[in-house]
Structures are given as C-alpha cells and as structure tokens.
C-alpha cells in the first residue's frame, strides 16, 4: 500500500511542478521518490496486508512491485532526455507515475474490479504516452492503434468478468475460486475464463492478439516502447498469473490447451517474423512478442516453480531490454537510423556500447553465462515438470531461430567493416544505466538465486 500512496503522491506533485515552476527539481525528486517507494515496499516483505478484500499485499505483490520499481528507476535514468526534449514534460512524468500505480495495482489485486482498474489506469496512460511525440505521424498512429485495439480487448475482458460474476456472484478472487470449482462444467464459466484470458493475452501480446505490438512498438517514441516492453509486460504477466493461479488453477482443463496453442503460435510468429526485420526497433518488438510466448509457458505449466520462473524471466528480460533499447536510442540518435546497418563496425570506437549490446543480445537469445539462459531454463523446467515436453521442444527450436536474429546485431557490431571511427557520445546517465544493466545481466546469469530466493 505504501507503494501506491507514494507513487500517486509523486504523480500529483509532478502535475503541480508546471504551475509552481520546479520542473528542474522534478527528475531528482522522482528518483528519490522511487527509491523511497522501493524502501517502503520492501519493508512489507513477509508482512502481508489485505485492504477491504480489494488489495492483498502478499509477498507476490511485494516482490513484483519491487521488480517494477527497479525497472522503472532504470527506465527513468534511461529516459531523462525524452522528458527534456518535450514541451509538456510534467504531464509525461505524471502519466508514467500513474501508469506505475496501475502496474502496482495489477500485481496486488484480490478483486476483479481492481484488476480492471489497474489495467485501465496503466493502459490509458500508455495510450497517451505512445502518441506523445505529437509532431510525428508514426507516433500518433501508434497511440491511436493501441487505443482502438486496446479498447476492443478491454471489452472482452469486461465481458469475461461479467460472465464470471454472473455465475459466481462475486468479484472476490477467493470466492470465485470456490464457486468456479463448484460450477466447473458450466459453459458460462468456460466462456468467462476464456474471455478473461483473451483480454489478458492482448495486454501480454500473445498471438493471435499480438498484431498491435509490432506497429505500436515501432511507432511510439523509443523510450515509451522500452516502457511498454518492460514495465507493462511485467505487470501484465504478473496479473495474468495472479488471476489464473488464484482462481482457475483447479480447472486447467478449460484453458491450458487454448493457451498452449497461443504459446506455440506466439513463439512461431514472434521469432520467425523477427528474422527479416531490418530495423532493430521492430526486431526488438517482435522479440518482445516472442518473449511473451516463453513467459506464457510458465503459465501453461502452472506449478510450484512457475511464480519464480515468471519473476526471474520478466525481471531479467526487462533489464536486458532496457540495455538494448538504451543503446538503440543512443545509436539511432547519432546515426539517424534504427536499422541494423547503423550498428555496423561500431566495436572499435565504442567498446562499452558494443559490449553492453552483445551482453543484452546474448541474454535475450538465452546464451550462458547471461541471465537470459537461466530465464529460459527455469521456464522450460516448469514445463518439463508439468509434462509439457513437446512445448519445450518447440520453444527450443524457436530459440534457435532467435539466436539467428540476435546474432545479426552482434555480427554487425563486430564483424562488419568500420563505418566511422568517431566514438558515439554517451551521457553519464546512460553510461550508468548500461553499466548497471550489463553487470546485473551477468551477475544474475552466474547467481540466479539472487532473484529466485525471494519468492
């Protein structure tokens, strides 16, 4: 609850910054605020609190909130320039902070209304952010597409909630669990579960509800794309898993087979489409779709180890993504192009950028000793324990395709002729972010228990 209060307060303060003219102080204030939020959230670890049956700050909520706060902290450091360049800085700060509130609600709800509220708080802010580069047609199109399709998906989510309410007579997760178990062969229950799943699948960009992702990711400002790929994705999966593990773990027969097919389709579409992409941004967008497929394996194979697998995967994936998007941001601003060719031969003049990008790509591809390896390993482990060997086999083949396109970037950096020897300027904040993300990626790859031990 501390998290929600601090984040909301920060958001409101940000709105006043324009009026009371302390815009310059806002950025350090927000970093400080996030640090404070992290501290007070962490204090709630092992002290679960329930608020009116609406929110339940159990360890699951605390750990995922902390993960989201760390990612958001790194994201703010990475995205500072974005706020400086835009006119309506404070609005953007406020929007991001409010969307973080939505994200925290999404990981701590114990009531379907709160889930819906969380998703909408998060989504509406991000719709606006996606369109925040007002002079850019692509950005406008991106925001509009996201909004249009998002509303469409929200409709199904609400429909699902309605059906579930109709059968169980409750929004409360615990009573839904018992009621669903009692009425498990009811067609309305099945339809409700499926519609809820479709709504959440849209937010997590699982195929065939992923079509918005590549277009929106590409059109939005790179910093916003980063936010969508990291914080939004983490929150979406945390919510997905929280809902389904609490309410529908007893009726897996109704939904796991559908999700199984969605995972296979997502892995196929995400990885195979990325192969031909010339733009690194679009490549990362498809890769983000593909990673959603891997994470969803742990949801399909719901078991004791799924929670830690999802936590480890979303957190390490977010860190590597921030690394990759930061470098993309720096390079594309310098070269004026987001294509892979912009990265060619940059290794000699930019050793830090090249190394950080390589580590990020290796992690996303799942090569040891980076964190991405264990991320896939633990997800696959849940699947094998649940008997989904075929799914693991498919996922491994998909990962092979993944190696192809991630390595294209590494090859461009190291093995293509040098384009220019002028080092690309990297600001101190970006430098710090890259050093932190690279070290964390390697550290978690060597000592995965640093994350797994918490949950």
């Amino acid at each position, binding site marked *: 609850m501390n998290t929600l209060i601090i984040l909301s307060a920060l958001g409101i303060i940000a709105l006043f910054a324009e009026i009371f003219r302390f815009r310059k102080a806002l950025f350090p204030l927000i970093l400080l605020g996030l640090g404070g939020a992290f501290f007070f959230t962490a204090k709630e670890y092992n002290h679960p609190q329930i608020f009116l049956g609406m929110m339940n700050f159990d360890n699951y909520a605390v750990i995922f909130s902390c993960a989201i706060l760390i990612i958001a902290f790194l994201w703010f450091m990475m995205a500072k320039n974005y706020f400086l360049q835009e006119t309506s800085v404070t609005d953007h700060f406020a929007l991001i902070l409010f969307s973080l509130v939505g994200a925290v609600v999404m990981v701590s709800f114990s009531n379907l209304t709160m889930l819906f509220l969380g998703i909408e708080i998060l989504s509406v802010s991000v719709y606006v952010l996606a369109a925040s580069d007002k002079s850019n047609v692509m950005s406008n199109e991106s925001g509009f*597409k996201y909004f*249009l*399709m998002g509303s*469409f*998906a929200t409709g*199904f989510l609400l429909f699902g909630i309605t059906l579930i309410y109709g059968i169980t007579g409750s929004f409360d997760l615990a009573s839904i669990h018992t009621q669903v178990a009692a009425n498990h062969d009811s*067609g309305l229950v*099945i*339809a409700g579960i*499926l*519609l809820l799943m*479709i709504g959440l699948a*849209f937010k997590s960009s699982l195929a*065939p*509800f992923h*079509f*918005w992702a*590549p*277009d929106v990711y590409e059109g939005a400002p790179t910093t916003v794309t980063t936010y969508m790929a990291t914080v939004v994705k983490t929150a979406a999966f945390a919510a997905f898993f929280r809902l389904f593990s609490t309410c529908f773990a007893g009726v897996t027969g*109704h939904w796991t087979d*559908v999700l199984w097919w969605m995972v296979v389709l997502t892995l196929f*579409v995400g990885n*195979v*489409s*990325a*192969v*031909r992409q010339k733009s690194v941004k679009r490549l990362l967008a498809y890769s983000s779709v593909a990673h959603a497929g891997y994470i969803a394996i742990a949801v399909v194979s719901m078991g004791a180890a799924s929670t830690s697998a999802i936590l480890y995967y979303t957190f390490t994936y977010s860190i590597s993504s921030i690394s990759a998007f930061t470098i993309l941001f720096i390079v594309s601003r310098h070269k004026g192009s987001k294509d892979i060719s912009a990265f060619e031969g940059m290794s000699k003049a930019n050793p830090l950028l090249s190394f950080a990008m390589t580590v990020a790509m290796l992690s996303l591809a799942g090569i040891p000793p980076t964190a991405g390896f264990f991320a896939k390993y633990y997800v696959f482990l849940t699947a094998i324990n649940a008997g989904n060997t075929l799914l693991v086999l498919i996922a491994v083949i998909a990962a092979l*395709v993944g190696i*192809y396109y991630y390595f294209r970037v590494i090859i461009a950096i190291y093995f293509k002729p040098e384009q220019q020897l002028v080092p690309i300027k990297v600001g101190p904040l970006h430098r710090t972010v890259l050093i932190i993300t690279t070290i964390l990626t390697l550290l978690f790859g060597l000592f995965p228990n640093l994350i797994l031990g918490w949950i």
Partner: protein
Amino acid sequence: MLQYAALIPFFPLAGFIILGLLNKKLPKNIAAVIACGMLLISFGLALGVFMNISGKTEEVQLAPWINVGSFSASFTFLLDPLSSIFLMIITGVGFLIHVYSIGYMHDDEKHNIFFAYLNLFIFFMLVLVLASSYLLMFVGWEGVGLCSYLLIGFWFKTKAYNDAAKKAFIMNRIGDLGFLLGIILLFITFGSSDYHTVFTKANGLMSGDTMITTITLLLFVGAMGKSAQIPLYTWLPDAMAGPTPVSALIHAATMVTAGIYMVARSGILYALSPVSMLVVAVVGIVTAVFAATIALTQNDIKKVLAYSTVSQLGYMFLGLGVGAFSASVFHVMTHAFFKALLFLGAGSVIHGLSGEQDIRHMGGLRKKMPITHITFLLATLAIAGIPPFSGFFSKDEILGHAFSAGMVFWVLGVIGSMMTSFYMFRLLFLAFYGTYRGDEHKVHAHESPKVMTIPLIILAILSTIGGFVGVPESLGGSANFDKFLEPVFHDAYAKMLLMEHSQILSEVALMGITVAAAAISIFFAWNMYVKKKTVPVSEGTRLPFLQNMSYHKYYVDEIYSALITKPLDKISGFLGNVVDNKFIDGIVNASGKLTNWVSGLMRFVQTGNVDFYLLAMVVGIALIIFFKLM
C-alpha cells in the same frame, strides 16, 4: 619433513608462472637463475624425502578435487621409495640439464619461454610420479605430453619440426586413449582409482583375472605411446627436432620413462596377469632389438641416440615383463644418467660445430673438445654395459631375470646388447676419432663453455659410479637398490611366486658372456671405423638389402602412412567435403532458407491495417469459443 615434500612440484610451477607472465621483461640471466633456482629447491626437498623415506609410505592430501555423487578424487601425493627415486632423477638430472641449457640456449630469442616450458614440464612430471591415484597421474601424464609437444615444436617456424611435434602428440593420443580406458575400467572394477584402494582390493584377487588382464593391457597401450614401444615408437626419433636439452630431459631421462614408472607402480596388477606380463616382455625385447638394428646405420648423431633410447626402453619393459621391477627402475636411473649425458654431449658437439648433426661430417673432435670426448666415452662405456660402469649392473640384472624367465629373451637381449655396443662405439669413433671431415674453413670446432661442460662432468661421474648402489650379491655386493624398493613391490613379488634365482655360478657366467659379447662388438667397431677408417656412404648410394632396410628404418613411417594416414585422409576428405559440406550443411542451410522465406510471408500478415488486425482477433476469439464450447 615429509609433508613439505608436497611442495616439491610447486617450485617449478612458480617458475613457470613467473617466467611465463614476465617473459621478455626479464633479462635472460635472471630468467635462467629463476628456472634453475626453483629446480634446485625442489631437488633439495627431494633429497630430504629420499633420505627419510626408506621403508615408509606417506600420503599427503593437498586439496579435495572432484566430488560428484559416489565419485570422488582428491589432490593427494604419495611418497614412497619408488616415487622418491623418480623425484631424485627428475629434479637432479633435470637441474643439470637446466644449467646446461643456460649455455645451449643462450643466443635463442625465445630463451625465457624455453625455461618456462622446461619448468612446466618438471611440474607435470613431478605430479605424474607423486600422484596417489591413476586419475591424478593422468593429469601429469597429459601435462608432460603437452610440454613435450611445445618443446619439440619449439622452433615452430620450420614446418618439419611442427610436423614432428604433431606426430608426437597424435601418437601419444593413441596411447593415452588406452590409458584412459584402463583408468575407467579400474573405476568400474574397484570403484576408485586410488592406488591404495585398487592395490588392496587387487591383492585379494586370483591370478589370471580377465578384467585385470584387460585393464593392464589397456594401461600398457598408454605406456607404449609414452615410452615409444612398437608399434607407437615412431614419434620419438622425430622428436629430436626439439632443442637438444629437451631431447636429453624429456625424450631420454624422464618423460619416456613414465610408461615404465606406471607399469612398475601397477606391479601388483601386472603380477596378477601372466598374459599381460608376457605381452610386456615380448613387446619390450622386440622393440629393444628392432630399434637397435635401425640405430646401426643412422648418420644423424641425435637419431642414433633416439633409436638407442627406444631400444633401452625396450630393455626396461623386458625387465618389467619378466618380473624384475626393481631392476627396471634401476635401469631407468642409470639410463637417465648416461643417456642424458650422451644427448648433452651430442648437444655440445652440435653447439661446437655450429649446428652440424651428421657424423659423416665430424671426426677428430677428440682433441678439440677434450671434456666432451672423455664424458661421451664414459657414457658410451656405461651404455655398452662394460663393468664397472653403471649400465653394466642395471642391464645385467634385467638380463639375468630374463634368463630365468626364458632362454629366448636372454639370447635376444644379448644380441641387442652387442648391437648397442657396436652402434655406440661407431658413433664415438666417427665423431671423435680419425680426422675432421667437415669444412675446416667454415666451421671452427671449439669446446663448449663451462656452464655446459660442468653438467657433463657431473653426469659422467654418475654414469661411472651410479651402478654401485645396486651391485648384486653374486658379485659380493648387497643389492641395496632392490632392498630399498622391496617394500613397494613386495605384494607383486608375492603374487608371482617365481623369482627363483638362478644359480650364482651361472649368474656370473651370464655376465661374462654379455661382457665378452659387448667387447667383441667394440673391437669390430674399432676395426672398422678407426683402423680401416670407413665412413658411411653418402646419400643416394645403393646399399645391400639389410643395410638399406635398417637405414630407411624398415619403411615403418611409409607403411603407417599408406595403411593408416592416407586412408584416414580419404575418409576425412569424403566426410568433410561431401557429407558435411553438401549433406549436413545442405540441411542446415535449407532450414535457414525456409525460415527466412516464411518470415517473408509473415510480413504480409502484418499489414498495418487496424481493421485486418481486429478481424484476426475476432476470428481467433470465435475459433477459441467454438472449439471449447461446441
């Protein structure tokens, strides 16, 4: 005292690390002092061990190593009389050769790296003999192989030297595979590779156990590779490509005797398998005679010594095969003295003649290189088995046991011994007597500096008197050497139950016959090369059949090439060019192309039209609901 012995290998290792890291930053003389100094410390410790070890067995555990399930291995060193003798040989002779190298390698640009490699070699060799399990021995075994490879190819800019290094490495791999399989079988049979466990359990087995026979034969394959026995001996003559101190240290005194050490260490296992013992003896004697016949006609001073080494190693295996374990180890020791001396003497000659190795272009060096000449003469007398030089005692002990084991071994042994005397004196006479046959104007033969001659003198003293530690009882001695090693081989001797000594009278008579035979050979050599001043014919002259076969080493290299190398090349070429390039790569590339093509198709799905996206969503939802509810 004994626990400090565990430090013995780590001084050379420290030397290697210092020299390897600093390399060119160190002045040459400081590098040499470090390398030699480290070895001197090890030698001091080894001496301490040697003085205190009599009748004792100590295990010193350094660190745990591998612990997986029921499998465990640790870094533990074993100190007993057998390992202490090898420690003395390795550090003592090794130290002398290090000192000699200061002079020999003085002008080489890779001087410091040379010493680093030598130190590393000593480290691995010490690990090999100090190990208390087969697994740890294997670490040293592979390590010395690596150093041997690095040092044979030390002057890697010459392709032939590189080829020699690769040949040595590959030949050794074949042996190592056998050795490794043997170790694995040991694990399966005894659940451990620790000597203590293995030997204790083996002691309870009956003679003739099939598994033991398999294990010992596999281990012997490893010994054949490392100690250059038929059919894996061809690498050793080629290994002479390395600098001469390397030939002396690795390819005469120490590494090539690792096979002897290993078989001797496993004495109890071999004692349980009469079949393996017979194989060892037969391979040993055949190699001894075969290599000696090749050495008769070689003209390269180092090649003669190389074949001589193969031949002498054959004698050692003969000794092991007939159950004379301590006699073989005795011969390892005396051989280390006189063969190292011969190689270093040859190095001195090569050094003095600015790189000339062909004995046809030598002669009359007696006056120009007096110290080299005298020491070489003493070593030659020792290897020829003339009493009272060291080789006489060790070789005769082996031949004496061979006589008890079978007349044929003894007869062949004496024939080999005659040839040994002949080719060694041929070498001596051609190089040091007569008149100089090289180009006087180009090459000014000179004696080597003191740093090289002093090790020669010390080794000469050892070659002369080194045999007195093992004077047999039949000659009024007390066989101290055998008594020193008796505790190590006690169980093995007990298993064989033979060891019946021949009558003392006949033992002395046998010695008389071998010495007389050697003397006759020396006379023939003198008659031919000093009196008649015969010089081996130059290249290209047609030789009589037998001489030709010997000169061309029975075309063994050519036979191996035709039977093994070339067919393997063909198969490898087929697998590489056709199976891999066309078939496997074809599948890989096709799957890549397919993915790429599908990816191209996928782009048409991502149209950018929201209405299409929404349609896809709706179709997806409809399908899901339809299949789940209908």
